[in-house]
């Protein structure tokens, strides 16, 4: 009998489909993956340490750069935590603006996730570029409001940095209407594509129990049949006022995760429509001391970021900068399941699974 040996293959830190600088040490038997060991830290920028030397407000830009695709939701999570710590109120209009921005961010993230997934599957750039083209329209809205495309730094404690410009609401409505149409278009292009089905269905099945045990959150969890969404389970901001549904699927494979994202895009658009309809007039910023000194204590607050449950844990010693600044990064924890998902599969499946889990190294390594 022929003797065979396993080989070790280093995927990353520079590899076209690791979504950044993620490294996986694969033990492979031919093309079959026997084991996988993830190695992080290639983008560890020491944010948590850095945050201890800056004031609370100065840390807002740091959160932008964590999950750089969805800066607004990171801002929101941080702002909510500080508001909880310092006991601040947020004006009505600001809450609506926050929700609009957060949901637009969700759309942006899911577009990017779907595009990147297709890119990893080998659809040479086109679906990715379509997704990015639609993303640009939303980035235009962000830019119009806060002046930046990606790293928005828009939210403030007790409100938002600036009121919406006059032309925001009509343009946002236009974008939403266009996106509805365009998501249908994307579905026609991809959802029933036979190759896509063959590549995604039954690949990387994440069982419900494992998902809960590994604290997986976000679309990855919901694709495994757990209807857990922080927006519903513990409503923050004003999410209890909107009518929206949480999609779940029982299959838990890559295709389910893809479908969940599409469904969530539609739900987010629905929320944005409601928020735009009921946007109240008024102030967007409560009276907050310029140099915030929250009382001694600690607080944890969480939101449903597009990638999962994003939480901040802040400890205050009464000073102007946080004593401890910790981020519960959803993607880092979601990656716990990766070795289980890929065992026995092949490299193309691994690539598809990573794409479907939707990781961003800026958040994992911080």
């Amino acid at each position, binding site marked *: 009998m022929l003797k065979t040996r396993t080989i070790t293959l280093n995927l990353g830190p520079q590899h076209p489909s690791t979504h950044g600088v993620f490294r996986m040490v694969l033990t492979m038997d031919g093309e079959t993956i026997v084991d996988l060991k993830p190695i992080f830290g290639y983008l560890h920028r020491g944010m948590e340490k850095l945050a201890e030397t800056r004031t609370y407000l100065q840390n807002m830009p740091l959160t932008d750069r964590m999950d750089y695709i969805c800066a607004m939701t990171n801002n929101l999570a941080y702002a909510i935590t500080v508001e909880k710590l310092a006991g601040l109120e947020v004006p009505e209009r600001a809450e609506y603006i926050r929700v609009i921005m957060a949901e637009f961010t969700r759309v942006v993230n899911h577009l990017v996730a779907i595009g990147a997934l297709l890119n990893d599957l080998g659809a040479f750039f086109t679906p990715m570029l379509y997704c990015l083209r639609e993303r640009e329209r939303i980035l235009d809205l962000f830019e119009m409001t806060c002046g930046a495309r990606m790293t928005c730094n828009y939210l403030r404690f007790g409100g938002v940095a600036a009121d919406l410009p006059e032309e925001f609401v009509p343009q946002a409505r236009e974008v939403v209407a266009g996106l509805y149409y365009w998501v249908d278009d994307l579905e026609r292009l991809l959802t029933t594509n036979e190759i896509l089905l063959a590549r995604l269905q039954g690949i990387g099945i994440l069982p419900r129990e494992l998902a809960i045990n590994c604290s997986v959150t976000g679309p990855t969890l919901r694709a495994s049949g757990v209807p857990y969404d922080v927006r519903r389970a513990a409503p923050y901001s004003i999410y209890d006022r909107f009518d929206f549904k949480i999609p779940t699927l029982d299959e838990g494979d890559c295709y389910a995760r893809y479908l969940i994202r599409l469904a969530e895009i539609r739900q987010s658009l629905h929320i944005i429509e409601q928020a735009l309809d009921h946007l109240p007039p008024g102030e967007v910023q409560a009276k907050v001391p310029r140099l915030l000194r929250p009382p001694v204590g600690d607080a944890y607050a969480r939101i449903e970021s597009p990638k999962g449950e994003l939480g901040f844990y802040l400890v205050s010693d009464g000073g102007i900068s946080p004593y401890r600044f910790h981020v519960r990064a959803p993607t880092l924890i979601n990656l716990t*399941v990766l070795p289980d998902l890929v065992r026995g599969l092949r490299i193309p499946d691994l690539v598809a699974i990573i794409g479907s889990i939707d990781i961003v190294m800026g958040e994992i390594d911080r």
Partner: protein
Amino acid sequence: MTDEEILARIEEHFPGAVVEVPQALDFTIVLRAERLLEVATYLRDELGLDYLISVTSVDRGDEFEVVYHLGTMTDQAGYLVLKVRVLRPSAEVPSLTPLWRGAEFQEDEVYDLMGIRFTGHPNLRRIMMWEGYEGHPLRKDFRPPYPIETDRLIAQSYAESENP
């Protein structure tokens, strides 16, 4: 089940396990480190707190605080904060990874950045910094080592490019 009921159950089943219930924004229970694992098992299996939200740590001078957030994946759920305090020199806490695989990377991270060892962790390793890095960055008394790996690399790179 309200937070107070949970506390009552814990005190009933594990007398002496609870050290303190401090006043805090979120309901917090400080546990004795060596009782952590059994209490957590009880909370998960009996009280249905099946979702380990996060694991983190705080440097409080001469002792470390390891902070766990526990919740459930059902609607209308709050969460419970468990804290464990360990003295700085030993800094050992039982690992929750056998209970929740989700704790694996978070405990790795705490070990890497704060230097708290988790006993019973299957694969405790530096996750953010490279192996052989000196010091634990999130400790308050951390000073970056100098010269670090990259500086040597830079020097070497220059040396090679000048006279190959």
